[in-house]
């Protein structure tokens, strides 16, 4: 019983606590690739604490939507953190919902973020918001098809059941391999990384996510920044723990959790490194080439489900 309460808390702590570190790690690695020393690994934490202590400047035009958005975004991500298997494949809160709920909770956060970007009446917000919606709409079908593939192979849409089912496979089947490839592209798009969106840019013609949050400051900005770090980590966690669930504890024993945590850190580190490599070696794609990229991912997902149906 006590474990049933401790594990969700542990999950939240890992996601909330580690997510700025992932961002710091990616930034550091990229700096290294560019032969810079780069900011400290813990820079995102310093930024967040600084922002949390500051007062905020709010636009006169903005309404209560603007002030509610950071909370809605942050909390929707926290609920998702409860549903995703992080350390153990047994997720105590999994009766709450499945991967479809996860996708739609992301949509909830996005819905409010885009509204708040329109709320201030600035053109930058509108640019960012409309692009964000366009890209996420294009990413949705591929995401849903890869989820379908995984769900049908493992017989469940519940993330913890998926992980349990996947633990019994030694090697990815070809269908899962295609779904994984499709999902990687989708995750890059959803998390707003290069080649879809450049998280460092503040040039009005290219920014997407940064455009939307331009008017936020103080604790509002902190919550949104933190939520976007957590979103990246959660997406990576879903990827890692459904497709490569090596080392995920299936029970709730203490040593099992420790080993699982070590594996988790290594796997997340590997994918973060991959993101850093991709970001350092590719340029941002032109905005209207992004549908092509996501179209490719959709085709891969279609192939995944077809190969599963026809071959097995």
């Amino acid at each position: 019983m006590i474990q049933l309460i401790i594990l969700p808390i542990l999950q939240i702590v890992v996601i909330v606590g580690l997510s700025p570190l992932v961002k710091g790690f990616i930034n550091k690695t990229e700096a290294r690739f560019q032969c810079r020393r780069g900011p400290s690994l813990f820079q995102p934490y310093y930024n967040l604490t600084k922002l949390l202590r500051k007062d905020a400047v709010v636009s006169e035009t903005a309404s209560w939507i603007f002030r509610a958005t950071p909370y809605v975004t942050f909390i929707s991500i926290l609920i998702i953190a409860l549903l995703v298997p992080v350390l153990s494949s047994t997720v105590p809160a999994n009766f709450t919902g499945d991967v479809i709920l996860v996708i739609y909770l992301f949509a909830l956060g996005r819905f409010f973020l885009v509204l708040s970007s329109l709320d201030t009446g600035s053109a930058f917000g509108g640019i960012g918001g409309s692009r964000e919606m366009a890209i996420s709409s294009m990413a949705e079908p591929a995401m849903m098809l890869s989820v379908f593939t995984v769900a049908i192979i493992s017989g469940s849409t519940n993330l913890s059941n998926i992980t349990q089912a996947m633990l019994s496979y030694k090697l990815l089947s070809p269908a899962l391999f295609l779904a994984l490839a499709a999902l990687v592209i989708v995750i890059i798009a959803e998390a707003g990384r290069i080649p879809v969106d450049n998280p460092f840019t503040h040039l009005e013609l290219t920014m997407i996510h940064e455009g939307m949050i331009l008017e936020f400051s103080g604790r509002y900005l902190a919550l949104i920044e933190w939520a976007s770090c957590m979103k990246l980590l959660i997406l990576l966690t879903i990827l890692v723990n459904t497709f490569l669930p090596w080392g995920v504890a299936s029970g709730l024993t203490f040593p099992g959790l420790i080993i699982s945590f070590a594996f988790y850190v290594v796997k997340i580190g590997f994918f973060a490194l991959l993101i850093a490599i991709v970001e350092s070696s590719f340029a941002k794609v032109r905005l209207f080439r992004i549908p092509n990229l996501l179209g490719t991912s959709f085709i891969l997902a279609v192939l995944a489900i077809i190969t599963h149906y026809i071959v097995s």
Partner: protein
Amino acid sequence: MKQHIIVNSQTIDVLAVMMLMATVLHISTSRLTTCVWAYAIRSFILACASGLIAYYSGIYHIFITTGITLVIKVVIIPGFLFYIIKKVGIKKEVESYLSFTLSLLCSCGVILIAYYATEPIIRFESTFMRHCLPVSIAITLVGFFTMITRKKAITQILGLLAMEDGLFFAALSTSYGMPLIVELGVFFDILVSVIIMGIYVYRIKETFETTDTGFLRELRE
């Protein structure tokens, strides 16, 4: 005695699907160099697959084919193509008669047909290795498709190479390779034809100031 050998490995299935992914990359990119890279990657995976098949089936002459594949298809042909691209100085990238989305959808349909058509055959195969036949046919068809829709001569060479890859993989996975001498002949053919076509591309460029094969229609008169 060959029919007694049964290779049954999921790794080869995964490799087959990776080859398919490389082919999808070939269609979905708009850069010529990425196309060549896609070819090199696919040939490398093909070499890995053929090495594995040689290992599992115990037919050791396939190792020779693997080695030749590595040398010719992974090193020499891509290198030569990169050289041609540099020499001809192609400015415009991949051009196609169809729009991007349409060609992607078409090739998806082609892959679908390949899977659907081979379904009655692969149903009787062993648990694994079911992907090999449909994937090889899909690669052949998609290669054919790119030859039809792409304008540039080099992209057409790449389409031809894709077809050859597909056929080679089909032979390899279903009957564990052709006799060595036939395969050597095919390799030699491919190498020579690529080189001839490369020179031909250069000549077209010299004569017409473009490598767009659409302009070859002007030769009618």
